[in-house]
């Protein structure tokens, strides 16, 4: 037996459901541009007849109608598999982004091709020596040689300083990134708890989950993570098997300045990343953090970083000083005033006043020897002693020619040839940087397309929401109309029934 107001009850449920639907649509539209927002859908189902306690006899009757609509849940439309793929690629994207930025910066440090790069400065220096070979008695040309030698050493200093500066920036970025990671994991922990508490009642914490997803996205660009959610709704994030966040517990990281700088001695220590409260290093498998670390520490041709380039520059400076001094020491200086012609003079040194040791020469400390700074006449161009009392040897240019000949020497120890070495350095950098740019480009396309996929599934389509809105609007109007009809029917029943003959 149907109850009298049964129809009104069904219509009321319809009204509520439509109203809820309109709310969800409104929420979706309101968040159409919110980053990380996942569109929500109202999931409804019909109520089978006889439930809800309205007619205990209905099961036995025929032609029973269901008792309206019920709201199942407010679900999110999201593909967890794409999320996982996206985060994996996002980790690689973060790594290539930082690497590419740094390599491009190194390229701008080297300023090639230009008239101010190492190759150009080196060419100027050798050109001056050729001029000196043609005119060894000229003070002006000797001054030019010295000036361009200073330019050469200063170029090397500049490269070195800029590299170390960049390295320091990378190091600071590592510290900042560690703090960023710590902030994110604390937030994830808090959200874990809120979501769990919210969902314990059976509801879905959609908006909180969106927030958490955004945080996991961010985290994935910083460091390589693994994550999963247990069936009872507990969320866990690991780094290489070690727990970062486990539901409402977390373990932060710390940056400790305890690593020797591989770029050379006498430089500041660098940060290592450890688990807080322990002495265990964090295994960093990717992300921006790995990008920073690789550039900061890279020391081999297959992992080029700042120390690699600094070492190449040091090798260059060392060979330059050693080879140049070796020839120069054979030469004799031009006497000036009371000074006699001398031999065994060093041209370059690492520290004035100290004995020359080629192994101590670096791009940072290479400089002209005290003798050369004192007087340009101490540049030894002559192959024999020059005696001004019998002025017949100052035109000797034998050593100047040998110095100039170093330019074409192809088999120098350590570096082969000065200019080829400098060129190869630039070529190596160019290849590495171009490779990194191409990887970044590919990675960008990959993550973009995954992001598009994700938006395609989870993003809000205004057209769709409008359609839904109209749909709910009509449903609402129709439900309201049903109530009117019911009302009319009851009106007839209550107020007009039994009035016959009255």
């Amino acid at each position, binding site marked *: 037996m149907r109850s009298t107001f049964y129809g009104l009850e069904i219509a009321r449920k319809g009204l509520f459901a439509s109203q809820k639907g309109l709310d969800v649509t409104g929420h979706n539209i309101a968040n*159409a*541009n919110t980053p990380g927002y996942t569109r929500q859908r109202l999931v409804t189902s019909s109520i089978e007849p006889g439930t809800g306690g309205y007619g205990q006899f209905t099961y036995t009757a025929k032609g029973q109608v269901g008792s309206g609509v019920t709201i199942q849940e407010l679900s999110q439309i999201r593909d967890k598999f794409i999320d996982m793929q996206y985060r994996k690629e996002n980790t690689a994207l973060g790594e290539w982004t930082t690497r590419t930025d740094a*390599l*491009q910066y190194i*390229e*701008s440090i*080297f300023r*090639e*091709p230009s008239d101010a790069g190492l*190759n*150009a400065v080196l*060419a*100027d220096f*050798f*050109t001056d020596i*050729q*001029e000196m*070979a*043609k*005119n060894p*008695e000229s003070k002006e040309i000797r001054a030019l040689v010295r000036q361009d030698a200073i330019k050469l050493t200063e170029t090397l200093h500049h490269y070195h300083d800029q590299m170390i500066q960049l390295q320091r920036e990378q190091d600071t970025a590592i510290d900042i990134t560690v703090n960023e990671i710590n902030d994110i994991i604390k937030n994830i922990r808090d959200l874990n708890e809120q979501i769990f508490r919210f969902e314990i009642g059976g509801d879905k914490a959609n908006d909180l989950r969106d927030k958490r997803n955004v945080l996991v996205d961010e985290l994935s660009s910083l460091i390589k993570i693994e994550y999963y959610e247990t069936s009872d709704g507990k969320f866990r994030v690991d780094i290489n098997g070690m727990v970062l966040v486990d539901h409402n517990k977390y373990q932060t990281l710390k940056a400790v300045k305890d690593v020797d700088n591989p770029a050379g001695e006498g430089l500041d220590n660098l940060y290592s990343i450890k688990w807080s409260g322990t002495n265990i290093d964090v295994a960093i498998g990717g992300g921006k953090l790995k990008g920073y670390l690789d550039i900061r520490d890279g020391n081999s041709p297959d992992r080029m970083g700042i120390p690699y380039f600094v070492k190449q520059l040091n090798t260059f400076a060392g060979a330059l000083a050693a080879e140049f001094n070796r020839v120069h020491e054979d030469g004799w200086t031009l006497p000036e005033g009371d000074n006699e012609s001398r031999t065994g003079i060093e041209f370059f040194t690492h520290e004035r006043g100290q004995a020359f040791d080629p192994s101590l020469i670096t791009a940072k400390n290479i400089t002209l020897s005290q003798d050369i700074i004192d007087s340009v006449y101490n540049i030894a161009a*002559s192959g024999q002693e020059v005696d001004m009392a*019998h*002025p*017949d*040897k*100052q*035109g*000797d*240019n034998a050593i100047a*020619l040998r110095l*100039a*000949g170093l*330019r*074409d020497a192809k088999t120098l120890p350590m570096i082969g040839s000065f200019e080829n070495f*400098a*060129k190869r350095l*630039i*070529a190596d*950098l*160019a*290849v*590495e*940087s*171009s490779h990194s*740019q191409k990887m970044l480009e590919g990675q960008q396309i990959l993550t973009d397309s995954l*992001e*598009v996929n994700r*938006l*395609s*599934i989870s*993003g*809000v*389509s*205004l*057209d*769709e929401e*409008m*359609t839904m809105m*109209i749909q709910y609007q009509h449903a609402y109007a129709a439900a309201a109309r049903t109530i009117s009809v019911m009302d009319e029917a009851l009106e007839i029943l209550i107020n007009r029934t039994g009035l016959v003959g009255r």
Partner: protein
Amino acid sequence: MRITNSMMIGQLMNNLNKNLKRMENYQYQLATGSRLQRPSQDPVGITRSLQARTELSKVHQYKKNVDDAGAWLTQTETALTEMNSLIVRAYELAVDGANGDKTPEDRQAIAREVEELMNQLLEASNASYAGRQVFGGYNTTEKPFEVLDDNGQSYLLYNGQRIANLSDPNSQPIIPDGIGSERIEFEIGSGVFMDISMSGTDVLGVGNDNIYAVFHELYDALNDGTDADRVNESIGKLQFQQQEILSHLAEVGGKTNRLDLIKTRLEMDEMNYTEIKSQVEDVDHEKVIMEFLMAEIVYRSSLSVGARIIQPTLLDFLR
């Protein structure tokens, strides 16, 4: 695939950005005239361009060296030509003075002219180029040849060393070892050197064969005026010395020719390397302008399509 608004806008912005970046790149190329901002834009090209820059710098230097060597040799040639004409004149005077008809007074008058020739010869053998002595070997600052009077004897000095006793033609002074062996070389190609100096002792000779000594002997003989045979002796020596000077002139001419050849080759090298460098570094304007225009069209159409695609929604059509 389901298309959402944020997706469409995101894609549109990505693409607009890419197009704009392409335009910016072409704009940079056109504005600077340089194809490369960073080596990584063309790693293979950069190697070639740096190589070409190095080679160009070398070629420029070698060209300068060749020019300097050429100027130096021209100066040498001038001095040698002058010496040759002095010898020719001395020869004429000697032949004239050896004539048996001449009186001692006549010969003494001729001797006066020979004395003048001697001064000119000394000047020519101390020729300099840009303040540097041409015949001095490593002595580039002081005049290499000098006449020294010592104890009534006259000596010819070369770089301070006595190379001929002018007063006594029959005595041969001890010539120090290695005199005149100094060579000033210019590098005129990679590892290619040219000896551009000509030693004064090679050119003028040492001992009583030295041209100046021969002139001096001729002067003495003429000044004495009585011995025609003594004058005659000089004639043979002068002929011999002229041959020497002419062979030196031929040597200088040969070197000058070689320099010309090398210079031509260097100029060709310069052209080649400039071309290589330009190919890598310089903008091909026509090509880049065309590419820029194409990029502009793409950018403009993406803007116009974008403007139309993001505006309408179903909202516009609902009443």
